């Protein structure tokens, strides 16, 4: 059956009606093409919107009990409450976001600063790789959360231990992607640079690093995702300042407010999405040569 949907929606979902009804396979020029592109872009959030509408409809119809999963409207109210009154009262949402962001960013920055050079060395020198790989592969499977007691022992409860936990989660994806990125460089590129007079420093900074950049950026994207996952869990164990999205969610659980719990989850999702979006935009700019 042919669905009554517009061309751009069909294109977005990849719905095609076969050869008899080719879907915009022809040529579009200038303004028309631009407007189609714009329409396609604005349609990207349509599925999300649709799910939320369906969810609300199901909640209103009583199909989803409010005590199991709050409705979108209830969550929105929870969000407003978090933003204005705060949880615990006085500790508002912006503070929680900033608190968590600071921990994630400092942990990932720490991981980047250490994993990037180490990964480049491991990628370039097989001997270094042979020596370090067993250590890496033994520490890597340990969940960052298993480190929480040790982290608290070493750094006490607070930002330092949270940053350490995130560092552990973010370190390995950046390391492995950097190693992989350097190892897969076309060897001729290295040889050509050596012939043209590149020393080790120039080789690393001007050849290996830019060549490995695409996979390094992939590593950073994965690291940020893992950073959020571990951070929120790490904050469950407590924070000193009283600010943190994970801590906020735990507090909401303690006072039995699922609407606030889900609002907190949604905020983490949106921030994570926004960060990835920013990195992807930066990637497009930095890697325009690809």
């Amino acid at each position: 059956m042919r669905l009554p949907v517009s061309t751009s929606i069909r294109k977005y979902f990849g719905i095609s009606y076969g050869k008899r009804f080719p879907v915009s396979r022809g040529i579009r020029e200038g303004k028309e093409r631009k407007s189609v592109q714009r329409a396609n872009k604005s349609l990207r959030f349509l599925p999300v919107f649709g799910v939320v509408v369906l969810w609300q409809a199901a909640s209103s119809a009583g199909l989803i009990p409010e005590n199991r999963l709050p409705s979108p409207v209830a969550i929105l109210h929870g969000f407003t409450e978090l933003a204005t009154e705060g949880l615990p009262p006085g500790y508002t949402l912006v503070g929680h976001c900033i608190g968590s962001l600071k921990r994630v960013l400092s942990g990932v920055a720490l991981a980047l600063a250490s994993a990037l050079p180490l990964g480049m060395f491991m990628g370039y020198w097989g001997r270094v790789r042979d020596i370090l790989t067993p250590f890496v592969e033994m520490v890597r499977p340990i969940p960052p959360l298993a480190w929480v007691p040790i982290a608290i022992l070493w750094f006490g409860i607070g930002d330092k231990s949270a940053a350490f936990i995130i560092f552990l989660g973010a370190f390995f994806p950046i390391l492995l992607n950097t190693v992989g990125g350097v190892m897969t460089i076309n060897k001729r590129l290295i040889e050509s640079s050596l012939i043209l007079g590149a020393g080790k420093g120039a080789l690393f900074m001007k050849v290996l690093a830019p060549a490995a950049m695409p996979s390094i950026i992939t590593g950073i994207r994965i690291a940020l995702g893992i950073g959020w996952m571990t951070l929120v869990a790490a904050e469950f164990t407590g924070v000193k300042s009283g600010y943190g999205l994970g801590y906020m969610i735990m507090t909401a659980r303690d006072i039995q407010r699922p609407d606030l719990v889900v609002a907190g989850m949604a905020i983490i999702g949106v921030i994570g999405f926004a960060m990835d979006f920013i990195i992807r935009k930066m990637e497009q700019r930095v890697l325009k040569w690809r």
Partner: protein
Amino acid sequence: MELRVSGLHKSFSSASEGERVDALIDVSFVVPEGRFVCVIGPSGCGKTTLLRMISGLEKPDRGTILLGDREITGPVREVGYIFQEPVLLPWRTIVRNVEFGLEMAGMAKQERREKALAALELVELRDFADFYPKEISGGMKQKAALAMALVVEPKVLLMDEPFVSLDCQTRNYMQAAFLGVWEKTRKTVIFVTHNVEEAVFLGDEIICLTSRPAEVGKRLRVGIPHPRDRTSPELNLIRKEILLFLAAEREKTRSVNGMFTHVHDLSEV
């Protein structure tokens, strides 16, 4: 400055047979300054290995390579190298690629830009200075690689089948274009190829390597001035001589060294 290759020997350990396989035995020749030498030989005879050793990228087991009175023991800018596939830094524009060697030498920005543009002018690529490598064709990429190698003013230019991945027409055009550049710069060139027509069209001299283990089997002078006619009888005569040599080498491989026909070409791994 003449290039003196003496007694080069190189062997590889063969994975399938667990023993050393000789790739080159006792390869010696002298290339006077400014000469265009083509090296030809049966496929898999170690032409690339020879070139890599001359460049210092690989070390010979025995033997020496002298450029003037200096021994080559590692990569140096005096010996430029053009690889089979054009090697460019994909994140740099063409002009920034050409600047790379000058940048490594610590040359000031303004000066190296001027030199790079002049080098691009030489290979007729000036209009594409600000393009990224992915935006230009294979032949143009190889021209850019040529400019990149020439701009640091090497004494010797080593070329490893540089036009092999191009289509026939582009290859002919690139040969002629390269000859034009060579006549302006008069670098010493060692040009490896398995294409007999290419060798006789380009070279002042042709060194024929035997099949593995390779040594110099034959040296020919091509005393025909450029520009040469690809189909002229004189050129064909030389072509025929080389083809006969190669056929004889192939025959030798089959009868004496039959086992090596299965060995994967280690030199080109």
